């Protein structure tokens, strides 16, 4: 595809013809460079049009490799990252699209760079630049691929032990003294067949590093280690090298960013290759590594939810892990609740698949066991303990003494009566959650410690419902005596969200004495009712919802 850029060259004489061809079928035009002040130079800049331009792809500017990590806003290949070519499909001519690119290069990059206006920009996206440094240094035979942290940075630099997991080649910067370490190792399964002890110099930093301040050599790192570690820690780290040939990692971090290096002098890397093993010697220089934070504050709430530390200390008892209970356990685990005990005697059957957290791979397993396994593997911030038994049995063997909140998601009248009895001796906040047929409505009744559910001998559940149900709505499942309503998992998601939010509110406030008990309800409108059964009507209190697709209503618990 030949483009005629000669008129563009008249407007912008620094654009030089003729076109040159570059790897991948790209076309390049060199850009004449200005006179540089000492230290601001780069070897070349090119306008590049990818193969298929203008129909496919976007035009861009590429700078010579010497500019990468010296000049901000360049990716690893030297491609300038700024607003440029709007791309095909928006009605611009090729010439206009190229003009946008050249204009952006001049005004957003070249002039500000020469004037020093981009000098502070490395600080803004420091981890992006670190990723470039890591990618440049990476090789297939590296002993370590990344470092995971699971706690906050220390206030003072220290040397601690960590675990290298093989064959995954991930280092966890903590040892088994933290329970979460074990949960992470478990969740890696066969990727963490082998645990190898390593030493980690865990050093807090006050500022994020930039390419001009991060350590560039072993002697830079040596300075930091000498400056920050106590002499005992320093010699522990040094000594290990001569001793058993342990891997050593330097972790430099604060609450926002972290940087890690694998030090040279560790044992050789042994990798499984086709029909055997391949051994690679240790590195000669420090290897920069990416880090990931696996601590609950980050995995659960990306540091924006201070309530997580409170949740981590909570123990929640969930009764019933069916279509409502199972996704709610998943939600409160995702929200960072530290301990969840799940009680249910049921096994997974084919009829559950369409609306349960679990799937066909769990058929025949105890629901609680499969859920515990799944969540314990997926969310290291949470520990789920399964009890494959009925609530009656569980209550015989256990008390509510260390339980912070009970969630009754069984829908069973007997369970409600039993919990009422136990709460007389162990006052504990209780949430009762259930759905009406077709998930035409769902309710979360939140009862603080000391508030009873039963009204004398009367169970208020039906009274609290939103829809007047004719008796023939309830179907009998073939070959089974349990109640069965047809509904989709999508319709149930609304109920799950409502009950999960209420549960978290209760969990977060369980320590504070809340004065009122309340019922929060999700109620679908008339259109939804009509679609499912002719002649359905709302109860008086719920009539407000009838004109909407759905509405959330709050009431006092009577």
């Amino acid at each position, binding site marked *: 595809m030949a483009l005629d850029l000669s008129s563009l060259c008249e*407007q*912008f*004489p*620094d654009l030089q013809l003729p076109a040159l061809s570059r790897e991948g079928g790209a076309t390049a035009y060199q850009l004449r460079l*200005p*006179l*540089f*002040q*000492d*230290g*601001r130079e780069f070897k070349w800049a090119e306008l590049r049009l990818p193969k298929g331009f203008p129909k496919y792809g976007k035009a861009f500017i590429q700078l010579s490799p010497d500019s990468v990590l010296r000049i901000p806003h360049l990716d690893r290949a030297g491609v300038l990252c700024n607003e440029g070519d*709007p791309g095909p499909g*928006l009605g*611009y001519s090729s010439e*206009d699209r190229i*003009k*946008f690119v*050249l*204009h952006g290069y*001049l005004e957003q990059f*070249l*002039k*500000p*760079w*020469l*004037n*020093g206006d981009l*000098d*502070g920009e490395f*600080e803004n996206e420091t981890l992006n630049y670190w990723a470039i440094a890591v990618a440049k240094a990476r090789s297939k035979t590296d002993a370590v691929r990344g470092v995971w942290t699971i706690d906050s940075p220390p206030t*003072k*630099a220290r040397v601690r032990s960590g675990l290298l997991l093989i064959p995954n080649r991930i280092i966890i910067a903590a040892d088994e003294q933290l329970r979460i370490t074990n949960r992470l190792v478990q969740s890696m399964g066969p990727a963490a067949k082998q645990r190898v002890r390593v030493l980690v110099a865990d*050093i*807090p*930093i*006050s*500022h994020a*590093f930039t390419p*001009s*301040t*991060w*350590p560039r050599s072993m002697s*830079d790192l040596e*300075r*930091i280690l*000498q*400056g*920050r570690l106590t002499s005992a820690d320093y010699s522990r780290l040094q000594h290990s090298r001569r001793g058993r040939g342990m891997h050593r990692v330097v972790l*430099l971090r604060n609450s926002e960013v972290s940087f890690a290096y694998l030090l040279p002098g560790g044992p050789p890397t042994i990798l499984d290759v086709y029909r055997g093993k391949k051994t690679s010697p240790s590195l000669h220089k420090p290897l920069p590594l990416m880090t990931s934070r696996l601590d609950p504050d980050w995995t659960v709430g990306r540091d924006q939810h201070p309530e997580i530390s409170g949740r981590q200390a909570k123990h929640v008892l969930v009764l019933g892990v069916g279509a409502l209970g199972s996704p709610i356990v998943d939600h409160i685990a995702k929200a960072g609740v530290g301990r969840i005990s799940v009680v249910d005697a049921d096994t997974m059957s084919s009829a559950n698949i369409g609306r349960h957290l679990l799937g066909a791979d769990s058929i025949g397993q105890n629901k609680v066991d499969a859920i515990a396994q799944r969540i314990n593997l997926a969310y290291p911030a949470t520990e789920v303990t399964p009890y494959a038994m009925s609530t009656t049995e569980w209550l015989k063997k256990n008390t509510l003494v260390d339980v912070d909140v009970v969630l009754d998601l069984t829908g069973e009248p007997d369970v409600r009566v039993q919990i009422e009895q136990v709460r007389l001796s162990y006052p504990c906040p209780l949430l009762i959650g259930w759905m009406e047929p077709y998930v035409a409505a769902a309710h979360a009744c939140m009862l603080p410690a000391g508030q009873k559910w039963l009204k004398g001998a009367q169970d208020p559940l039906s009274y609290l419902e939103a829809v007047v149900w004719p008796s023939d709505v309830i179907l009998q499942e073939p070959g089974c005596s349990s109640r069965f309503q047809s509904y989709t998992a999508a319709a149930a998601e609304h109920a799950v969200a409502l009950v999960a939010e209420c549960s978290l509110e209760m969990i977060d406030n369980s320590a504070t004495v809340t004065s009122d008990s309340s019922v929060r309800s999700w109620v679908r409108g008339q259109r939804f009712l009509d679609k499912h059964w002719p002649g359905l009507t709302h109860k008086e209190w719920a009539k407000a919802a009838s004109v909407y697709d759905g509405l959330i209503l709050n009431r006092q618990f009577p």
Partner: protein
Amino acid sequence: MITKSAELVKHAEQKFPARLTKSLASFAALREGYITDARDRLEEYDLWAKALSEANSHIAVDKEEIAAATDAYNEVADYLAANLSWPHESISIKPQGSVSTKTLIRSPNGSEKFDIDAVCKIDISQIEADNPVSFFESIGQALKELEAQPKRRCWKIPFTGRRFYLEFTPSIPLNTVSEQTLHSMAPRYSVSRYGETALAVVDMPTESWKTSNSEGMSKWVNDTSERRLIRTIAMEAHAYDRAAASVSPVPDQTVDITDTLRVAIRLFKRHRDMCARRGIIDADTKPISVIIVTLLTSCYEGLADLNRSFEHPVELLDELATLMPHLVLELDGKYRVDNPTVEGENFAEKWNDDGGDRYKSFMDWTSALSADLQTILAEKDPQAISKSVRYVFGISPPTGGGNSLTNLQPPAPRATPASRGLA
């Protein structure tokens, strides 16, 4: 009689610290005296002086910015005077610290604020002086609308939206506090040199008056910096070059780091800040500026008192960096950096009860400084020197030329780009 500073220098020299340039091949010609002509020697020194001078001017806060800050604290002074019950003429506000010694530096990240210290002196009655806490609080009360935050001895005014913040230290003339009160509350402190400017400030943690002499400290730095340590022969050579510029245009490279004490203070402070950025020292225990200022000024003063002389500022910088770590006294197992203007005040007091963290930071910093200066002085290629100086002191390359580039008219503005949804 030998002065205290001279004594400190002699004491440091007894440890036989080696000059940074002692074994550098790059310095052999100067060190061994192979170059004899004074002008040639200066040109040789200027290799490094040029790059160091560039760094010095990059980190110094320029006069305009300081002037803007000065205006701001004058405004605060008027505001304070209007809000306080004392008569206007009994209140005076003066800058102190790095502003008054002209050693204010920028933070490595240009967007961070610099702090302007000011001392606000109020003539209050002896009766009022009996209660230092209520005096301190009354100043804070008067500054309430400026969101002043109390610190150990001063009120910090954040000045949202400006390049700087102010720290106001309330004080009273020393003679207002009765000798007895002062003695009973802070018996260790008494006035030393520059006694006429001594003040009493409130130390909130102990709720008592403490002697302070920030004006005296500034005057000491300024007086000392004016003393000549560079040999006249060098000065003459420079003067000769200037006069004969039309004949031999050398002085183009001659740069001004002759204000060597201040240059050293600025560069060393900056180096300390970079060490904290690089994680070499802990930002919480890094050496405080007043310690660096005191050690360097004592060293400079001691060298002057001993009639030492140097042929070029670079040689003097080498000497200052070499001696500085050895000017910290260790007496009876305690580290001491004495305030020369207040007898008994030890700027390094915290070093003695932190498990050695601050002393370690100081020593780690000074050894990094020596190593970095050696790296710079080991280079002889001007470009390599510049590169090295910029890296060590965290200085961006020189700017300019951007505005003279071509303009390219962009095509008609694009439609608002589609924004992203959360996913």
